[in-house]
């Protein structure tokens, strides 16, 4: 009985002493935190996704307050959060701020895809890609098993006709789908630019014509229509997204295979 009481007393007393010590120390060694850090941390989405490059949202707030990261650094919060942080920091949001989203560089739905063989392996893009591209004739296009759809933490990707579709309102350009796609057909682009090349094929035009109705054939019509924006490299049109302010629309109408989309 004695030992029972003694052990309760000792543990209770030790706990009490340490609690008191810690309480006193917390008060005595209090460090003043920049109030801006707390204010910024309260605004942030709190997803701790790490897409900004900082170790979590609080670390982002600390580094913004120190001026190490620009106020529009939070890709999830977008312009709205950037403006709020700007009002705390007393900085204007730069006028060249553009929301970025993930864009899919393939336009072939399941019925457009020509198959050379039937694939019955694991229903994952990563597996199909290693097995001769899942029997797909196109060595560059979407495999359609939705690895990007599975990995998206914000529910921004839906699969329509075997092709991922990005919801621009939900997409935060975190880049998880870019990394998940084994064929590298997703990239992060400025949302308001108004043009995306929906093809990744570097095959010569004649070959693309045989296997895909919506592939880029490298005809250079877009390059002639809007030379500031489009460039055909390796039989594939690419967009120079730094050419802001130039309207890319004329080429969209002229593209013979309609592989430039808004």
């Amino acid at each position, binding site marked *: 009985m004695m030992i029972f009481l003694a052990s309760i007393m000792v*543990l209770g007393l030790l706990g009490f002493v*340490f609690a008191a010590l810690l309480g006193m120390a917390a008060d005595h*060694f209090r460090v003043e935190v920049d109030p801006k850090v707390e204010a910024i941390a309260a605004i942030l989405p709190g997803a701790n996704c790490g897409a900004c490059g900082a170790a979590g949202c609080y670390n982002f707030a600390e580094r913004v307050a120190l001026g190490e990261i620009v106020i529009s650094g939070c890709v999830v919060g977008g312009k709205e959060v950037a403006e709020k942080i700007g009002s705390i920091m007393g900085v204007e949001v730069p006028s060249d701020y553009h929301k970025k989203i993930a864009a899919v560089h393939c336009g072939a739905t399941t019925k457009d895809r020509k198959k050379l063989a039937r694939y019955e392996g694991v229903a994952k893009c990563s597996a199909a890609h290693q097995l001769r591209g899942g029997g797909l004739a196109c060595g560059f296009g979407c495999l359609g098993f939705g690895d990007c759809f599975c990995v998206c933490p914000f529910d921004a990707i839906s699969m329509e006709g075997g092709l991922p579709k990005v919801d621009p309102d939900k997409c935060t350009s975190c880049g998880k789908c870019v990394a998940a796609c084994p064929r590298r057909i997703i990239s992060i682009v400025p949302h308001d630019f108004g043009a995306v090349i929906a093809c990744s094929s570097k095959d010569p035009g004649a070959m693309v014509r045989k296997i895909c109705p919506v592939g880029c054939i490298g005809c250079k019509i877009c390059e002639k229509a809007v030379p500031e924006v489009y460039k055909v490299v390796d039989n594939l049109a690419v967009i120079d997204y730094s050419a802001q302010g130039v309207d890319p629309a004329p080429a969209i109408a002229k593209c013979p295979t309609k592989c430039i989309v808004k």
Partner: protein
Amino acid sequence: MSELLGIFFAAFLINNILLIRFIALCSFFGVSTKLDTSIGMSSAVIFVMTVSSAISWIAYNTVLAPLHLEFLRTAVFILTIASLVQLEELYLKKAIPALYRAMGIYLPLITTNCAILAVAFLAIDYKYNFIQSMVYSLGVSGGYSLAIILFAYVRERTALAPIPKWFQGYPIAFITAALMSLAFLGFTRMFGL
């Protein structure tokens, strides 16, 4: 003096806590991917282990042993070590912010590490006096630092080496650790210890 040196080298090399005793392996594999994280972890281990073995020796020999409450040592050690590290963290944040930033996340992480508790237990099992247990904890934490820093050097190289896909990452790390452990077995019976 030679006895203290013996305790130090036995803990440092011959009974190296990571490679011979296989304690604290989680941090050994977790933070050894880069050299600077392993150095940060090592400094936190040296700091926390020395202070915690001192305080747990005092707690054991002044409170638990006289009251014959030795069976409470696990609970008491965890309580004292956890509170102490909290206290250290608060103090460092205020007094030496540079050191606090250097140790960063590793200080609270190491608090719950098994090596810290193991050293407190082992020093008591060996019936060391206060000075001996301090030397012992210095030896153990020095051995920890030696092993993890060497290991980080090797892992930085293996990260760039052309390793078969199935061996990349943890498999090759475990193989490396096993080879290092074999090398450390060579220290057995050194200095007649």
